[in-house]
């Protein structure tokens, strides 16, 4: 690739698509100067300058690391990159996402401050799900700087869990989640996927077995006649931190932000990136509302300022209040809502708040249009 404009040079002798230079890529003076520089006896390309053929004296500017000579820029050169800094993480997140989709895994990224009640909520959720949907596999990936306390609490409920310790790190990233998911598969194949995942099974489904793509080492081209895997739920409990995890895509279907009523209703505005990135905000510990100064309406209003489409649920993980609504939300995401008599017909990412906002705006525009029509119809 040409380092000046990024054009590719497939033939060494073809002139590059640069303006104002004839076939030679350098001025005659420069060519002479470089030819005068003693080159080594063998034809190996020096680090800078052309490769010089010792027999003919021919100069090849297409060889060597730079692959082109740019006058005046032999020592320093410009490289146009335009790469996302988070590109590497996002590529793996995309792999994770494809992997989850291919295996019917609903992955949710739970984010919050430390102490909001994520783990308690997860334990209560696992138990409630087991009562309502005993055949639904649920697994958890836990993230903390240190200790395996949370993973142990989850395992005590009977659900498989893998603990990631980030050490000095303040957030989970996509490669960590890929590695943890592979561990889940290795340790609890039945529970993590809801169906046996032996190699015979994979071959029957027509998967290829290239190593290195995704946690299972196979790609996800849809195999004809292959049914989607039975649905399962994967909760990723991120490191308690309302700032950093907002930037790191893990490959989840949605981020769920958990805010407890002991934290103050202004948090959505104080930590806008996190609440903007979340699809759902769960207000937890509502059993404590009589004992704290927490304005629920204002909290929801502030959350909608940074994310007009954010959905909100109010729960108490310890008393179970509101848990039914949370389970309903999960069932909806899993596609289990056929027995609730709903006739939703919307695509992914839809939310009532956005729809309401759009309806209000449409009504406003219709009113303006009606007024304008009247004005036009009755001039003077």
């Amino acid at each position: 690739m040409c380092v000046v404009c990024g054009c590719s040079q497939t033939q060494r002798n073809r002139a590059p698509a640069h303006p104002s230079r004839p076939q030679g890529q350098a001025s005659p003076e420069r060519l002479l100067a470089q030819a005068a520089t003693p080159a080594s006896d063998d034809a190996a390309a020096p680090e800078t300058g052309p490769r010089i053929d010792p027999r003919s004296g021919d100069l090849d500017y297409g060889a060597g690391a730079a692959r082109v000579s740019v006058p005046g820029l032999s020592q320093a050169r410009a490289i146009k990159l335009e790469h996302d800094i988070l590109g590497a993480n996002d590529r793996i997140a995309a792999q994770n996402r494809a992997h989850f989709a291919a295996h019917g895994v609903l992955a949710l990224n739970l984010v919050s401050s430390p102490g909001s009640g994520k783990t308690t909520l997860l334990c209560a959720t696992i138990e409630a799900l087991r009562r309502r949907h005993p055949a639904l596999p649920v697994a958890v990936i836990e993230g903390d700087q240190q200790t395996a306390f949370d993973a142990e609490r989850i395992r005590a409920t009977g659900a498989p869990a893998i603990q990631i310790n980030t050490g000095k790190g303040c957030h989970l990233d996509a490669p960590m989640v890929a590695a943890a998911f592979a561990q889940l598969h290795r340790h609890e194949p039945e529970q993590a996927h809801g169906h046996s995942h032996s190699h015979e099974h994979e071959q029957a489904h027509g998967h290829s077995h290239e190593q290195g793509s995704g946690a299972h080492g196979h790609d996800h081209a849809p195999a004809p006649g292959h049914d989607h895997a039975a649905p399962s739920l994967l909760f990723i409990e991120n490191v308690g931190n309302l700032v950093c995890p907002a930037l790191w895509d893990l490959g989840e279907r949605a981020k769920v932000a958990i805010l407890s009523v002991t934290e103050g209703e202004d948090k959505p505005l104080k930590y806008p990136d996190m609440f903007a990135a979340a699809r759902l905000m769960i207000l937890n510990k509502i059993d404590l509302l009589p004992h704290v100064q927490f304005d629920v309406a204002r909290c929801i209003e502030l959350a909608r300022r940074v994310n007009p489409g954010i959905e909100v649920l109010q729960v108490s993980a310890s008393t179970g209040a509101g848990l039914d609504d949370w389970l309903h939300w999960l069932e909806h995401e899993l596609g289990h809502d056929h027995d609730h008599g709903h006739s939703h017909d919307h695509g992914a990412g839809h939310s009532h708040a956005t729809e309401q906002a759009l309806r209000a705006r449409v009504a406003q525009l219709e009113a303006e249009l009606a007024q304008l029509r009247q004005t036009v119809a009755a001039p003077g």
Partner: protein
Amino acid sequence: MHEASLAGGVLQLVDDCAQREGFARVLELRLEVGQLAGVDVAALRFALDCIAPGTRLEDARIELVETPGQAWCLGCNSRVPIAQRGDPCPACSSYLLEPTGGMELRVLDLQVSDD
């Protein structure tokens, strides 16, 4: 602080580029950081300064280009500038804003030296 992770990401991009393009060190590095990217520019600069010694970034001049935040306002149907999430529309004061620009976080270009 996640700016430290991001600085590591920048260094990784630089090293990957060096493998492809074959240069020894970076003379100047230009990064684009959107106002709505969720990144503190001063912290990122500090993190880059910290990790640079002993790497291809040592002594590089680092330019951080801040691009302005932009959003589509559903209230007045126009594109408006916003400095941070949670600000109202400067034209109509609505909060029905969908960010459309200023969220970038990327390495734009480098000036490199072969020696």
